[in-house]
């Protein structure tokens, strides 16, 4: 535990700043954030994989108006079992090379196509996740913004209202709500879950607004005659966007785990529709005989949640002004050389000037 890297000496600090400054020269805040985000490897991989999953789920068996290219075009129907035991036909290597086959994720005991079921589950889980994320964001931002902007009794009232939802575990309220709305419609379930997931965001936005409302640009806007609503929505929310975006992402990864957990417990999406959590609940006992029935839905949950967590991490780094990229040794050396050259040139110009003068 002895060799902690000592903090970089001043010369290095200066060089790092030079690199940082050169990179952000002439860019707007949004462009800087975007560049930083694009440079975050984990976030970019996460984004690509997530897009892949969304496209696969949306197009394969069709989603609403989008027609599917997968044979059968739907889910839930059963066919005769192709390979004995319903083993997956997907193969990556071996005899015949890479093959997808008719049932890449295998079949269950009565011959249902696991690929179609998993795709449908992914669609449902993604849909629930996005709806929860949107609703929770809107409610959380509104409540946090009003509490932070107006302070006083309204703040007190709204924050106690937030506390009401904080003292109740989300899973518990979710189970009760799921019992009411779960067998009605997945969208309605998602909407109601959205209305209980906004508490963390509301607190954060309130904190941000309390600090922002003391800033000069708010005073300037007020002097210029802007209304309260205009100050809040045109001036302050854009400044709190970092907190909002980052937390919406993290909220979504929590949302997909909440939805799958509820469906697993039987309070979420219910037959005839399926979700990833429901699939795991249904097939967990088949683990010893047909492990693929259990692996595929689980892998999709983990992949989606992991991608979103990485994207959230990338966004957080991109929005954090204190976050600095550690420059590579090569970049440091290059800047050093450039700085030395510039200094040498300045020195020679100086002497010439002096000679002329």
């Amino acid at each position, binding site marked *: 535990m002895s*060799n902690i890297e000592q903090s970089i000496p001043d010369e290095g600090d200066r060089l790092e700043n030079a690199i940082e400054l050169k990179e952000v020269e002439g860019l707007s805040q949004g462009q800087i954030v975007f560049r930083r985000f694009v440079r975050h490897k984990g976030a970019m991989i996460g984004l690509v994989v997530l897009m892949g999953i969304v496209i696969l789920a949306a197009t394969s068996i069709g989603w609403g108006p989008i027609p599917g290219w997968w044979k059968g075009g739907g889910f839930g129907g059963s066919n005769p079992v192709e390979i004995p035991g319903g083993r997956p036909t997907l193969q990556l290597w071996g005899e015949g090379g890479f093959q997808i086959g008719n049932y890449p994720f295998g079949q269950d005991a009565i011959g249902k196509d696991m690929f179609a079921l998993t795709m449908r589950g992914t669609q449902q889980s993604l849909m629930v996740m996005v709806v929860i994320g949107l609703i929770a964001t809107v409610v959380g931002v509104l409540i946090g913004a009003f509490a932070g902007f107006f302070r006083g009794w309204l703040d007190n009232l709204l924050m106690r209202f937030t*506390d009401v939802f904080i003292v109740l575990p989300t899973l518990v*309220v979710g189970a009760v709500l799921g019992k009411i709305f779960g067998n009605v419609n997945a969208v309605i379930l998602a909407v109601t879950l959205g209305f209980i997931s906004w508490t963390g965001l509301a607190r954060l936005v309130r904190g941000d607004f309390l600090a922002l409302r003391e800033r000069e640009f708010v005073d300037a806007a007020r002097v210029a005659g802007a209304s309260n609503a205009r100050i809040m929505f045109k001036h302050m929310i854009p400044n709190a966007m970092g907190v909002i975006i980052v937390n919406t992402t993290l909220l979504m990864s929590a949302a997909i785990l909440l939805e799958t957990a509820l469906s697993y417990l039987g309070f979420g999406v219910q037959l005839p529709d399926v979700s990833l959590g429901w699939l*795991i609940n249904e097939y967990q006992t088949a683990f010893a005989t047909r492990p693929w029935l259990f692996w595929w839905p689980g892998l999709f949950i*983990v992949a989606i*949640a992991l991608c979103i*967590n990485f994207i959230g991490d990338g966004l957080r780094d991109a929005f954090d002004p204190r976050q600095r990229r550690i420059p590579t040794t090569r970049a440091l050396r290059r800047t050093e050389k450039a700085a030395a050259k510039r200094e040498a040139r300045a020195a020679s110009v100086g002497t010439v000037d002096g000679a002329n003068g």
Partner: protein
Amino acid sequence: MLNFVLRRLFSSVAVLLVATFLVFVLADIAVDPLEDLRTSTAPNKAALIAERTQLLGLDQPSPVRYLSWLGGVAGCAIGKCDLGMAWRTNQPVADVLGSALVVTLKLVTVATVLAIVLGVLVGVVSALRQYEGFDYGIIFLSFLLYSLPTFWVAVLLKQWVAIGFNDFLQDATISLPAILAIAIVLGIIFGSAVGGEWRRRFIVFGVSAASTIAVLSYISATKWLLDPALGPVVILVTGLGIAYAVTAVSTGVRNKRAMYTAMTVAVLGAALWWPLQFVFQQANGALITGLAVVAVAVGVVVGYAWGGPDRGQSARTGAIVAFLVAGLIYFDRLMQAWRPYSESSVINGRPIPTIGSQTPNLKGSYWVVTLDQLTHLLLPTLALILISFAGYTRYQRASMLEVMNQDYVRTARAKGLTERTVIMRHAFRNSLIPLATIVPLDIAALLGGAVITERIFGWTGMGTMFLKSLDNAELDPLMIYVLIVGAVAVIANFLADLVYAALDPRIRVNA
């Protein structure tokens, strides 16, 4: 201060009332206690429905029923508790609640303590190795664990840890490739955790891999896992290792008296192993607790006996080492019970259970019963740890990095303090402050939130009580669950604020 506490108390009670009322109304909409009767074909259907409506007061609107429930619970303040009935089984809620609370506490305590200790440890090491291989590995691992659904992990654990390990025990030999793979993985982990020069990393890698191979080969060759025991020699060697490590972290190896204290305690522990075996024959819970206290006291006394100006530090080191060595001896005795346990007729050679909190009809000594409870705790505890461990690691890493960049750490280094002192005394202690505020909240969340874990592993704790009452349309046990979870959350929030204010002088509570 008093004003702050009173105001907080008042608003907490109000919040709790509103929250319970909301859940009561929602749950009342969600459940239908008459469902089974509506579809029944009994000739006296109408009479049955009327009877149950009368029993549950369904003819009254739900706010009225909420008030009557609240009145019963509020009676606790004047000593006349009426928590209601679980009407399907005609059991008073107080009875159901008592056993459920005990089960959940047993499950949650071990998991929380282990998750905090492990998470803090790994988080600190990860922060000290910022942007190195180990750090990136831990970041990725914590993201992965964060994204795992509990119920999925639990099924995997059942399959691999329980069933797989039980199958493995039939034979209990480890194949050579498996030994090599484990050795290499452990070597890489330790090598990158220690860090520093590549030479140093390679040495650590080699030493840890070689010792892993040696230990695993011994375990495999002697089928040690079927009848495990440590014995006095292993206890002595491990004890000395613990003594060195604890001294190095708590006072630094240059503090000779602390080092002598730790070594004395370790030797003393190994020497007491033999006489303790006879004491252990009459073991029970109280005796073991007493022995643990005695061990710590002996450690303190040894520390004071070595004297010197810093006897407080020596005593502290001695106490920690004594506790750990005593734990080792206890663990050794538990291992000796392993064989009788796994060979007993109800266990039948498959010692890791996948369900329940204890084996029914198991008879045996204190050791066998304790071992049985521990094996039952294994899987659910693992599942709970895996998930909260990730959170603690990330939190501790961030807070440690924050502190390491503070000016006072630079000052401490500039004074010429050793790196150990800077990290342990100046950085680590301060980095724990933010943790002190989330631990109460986390415990509160775990108390009510082990719903899924309990369900999967068949523990009849609080979470199972909640799910069952929701399924059975029994509002009384459900409301008690919500009340307890809500109250614990409110109290934990309050505690967290107070703890933060006490630890961090920059925070004022009377704002």
